[in-house]
């Protein structure tokens, strides 16, 4: 007997992948190809995590866990929409040894301990990638405010 895996669908409304701080993030998700009685719970979260040369850190901005009792007719499969206002920080970042990624994560819990996960990454903010070769930046106005420094040479 061939057993099909559940089909999870997750999309960000407006087809956007990049958001400003304070924007409203609207997500829709839907579950198919699974018996509603098999579903124990569904969790939807909006989170950030670090990646790079350090331990992974994780921060959850939005979290929602739904049980069959929370849904009409006990069926968690129909399309569900949730919205959240994105925070001011941390912004998505592509650094030299550390990166910060934002993502919407959908986790489906079935009976007998099975779990299925779907992620949809997005970008928060517009921080440019870090420079990997760091020279001395031009100090365009990094100059002494007081030009009357009285000893020695001044840069």
């Amino acid at each position, binding site marked *: 007997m061939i057993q099909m895996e559940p089909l999870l669908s997750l999309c960000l409304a407006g087809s956007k992948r990049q958001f400003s701080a304070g924007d409203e993030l609207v997500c829709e998700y839907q579950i198919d190809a699974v018996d509603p009685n098999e579903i124990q719970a569904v969790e939807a979260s909006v989170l950030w995590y670090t*990646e790079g040369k350090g331990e992974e850190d994780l921060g959850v901005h939005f979290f929602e866990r739904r049980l069959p009792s929370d849904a009409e007719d006990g069926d968690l499969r129909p399309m569900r929409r949730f919205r959240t206002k994105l925070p001011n920080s941390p912004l998505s970042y592509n650094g030299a040894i550390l990166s910060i990624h934002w993502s919407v994560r959908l986790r489906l819990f079935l009976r007998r301990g099975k779990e299925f996960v779907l992620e949809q990454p997005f970008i928060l903010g517009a921080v440019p990638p870090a420079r*990997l070769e760091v020279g001395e930046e031009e100090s365009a106005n990094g100059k002494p405010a007081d030009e009357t420094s009285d000893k020695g040479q001044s840069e």
Partner: protein
Amino acid sequence: MNPFSTRHTRPGALEYLFPEGESAEGLVARLQRQNWWGAILGPHGAGKSTLLHTLLPALEAAGREAAWFTLHPQEHSLPLGRETVGQWDRSTQVIVDGYEQLGWWPRWRLKSLCRRIGCGLLVTAHGAVDIPTLYHVQPSLQIAEQVVARLLAEASGDLAAEDANQPRRATVIHAADVAAAFERQQGNVRETLFELHDVYRRRTAAREPG
């Protein structure tokens, strides 16, 4: 994503690549012949912790229940209270990652407890300890190349087509990069992977538009 970031290289995320003739099952069988007592030895960054994680499923398949302890720097004792030890029995496999950091009294107490209860004891250490050696982890350039090939293949989603025993000539990381990093890091595989993280980052950044 950088295939050399810690989420891909940490113990447990990466399978230990055994040399020819060795396997997790073989090591577990050897451990059983030693009454489930053994020490995995090797220098820093050789893959001892990775090997422990790789052995775990084989240990569980052999009917062992793992009781895992990881010792970090400045930690010289184990939390061996009644609640913890009370759950141990003859099928328990006590695993201590960083055994040499234990002081003589915690070591004596741990071994004494394990002998009294009859449970197994599997430890990692950088040098010989007072427990029979199970396995020596020896880093080699060949192993490092295989690890890198596996990481790059996973990153490109190409693992099914990858023969892990044949190092792959990736377009971003080349065999010469692996060899140079391995030599600079004096055989420390973990530091080799950290160095390749920077190489990968530099080269992919150079390829990004704008």
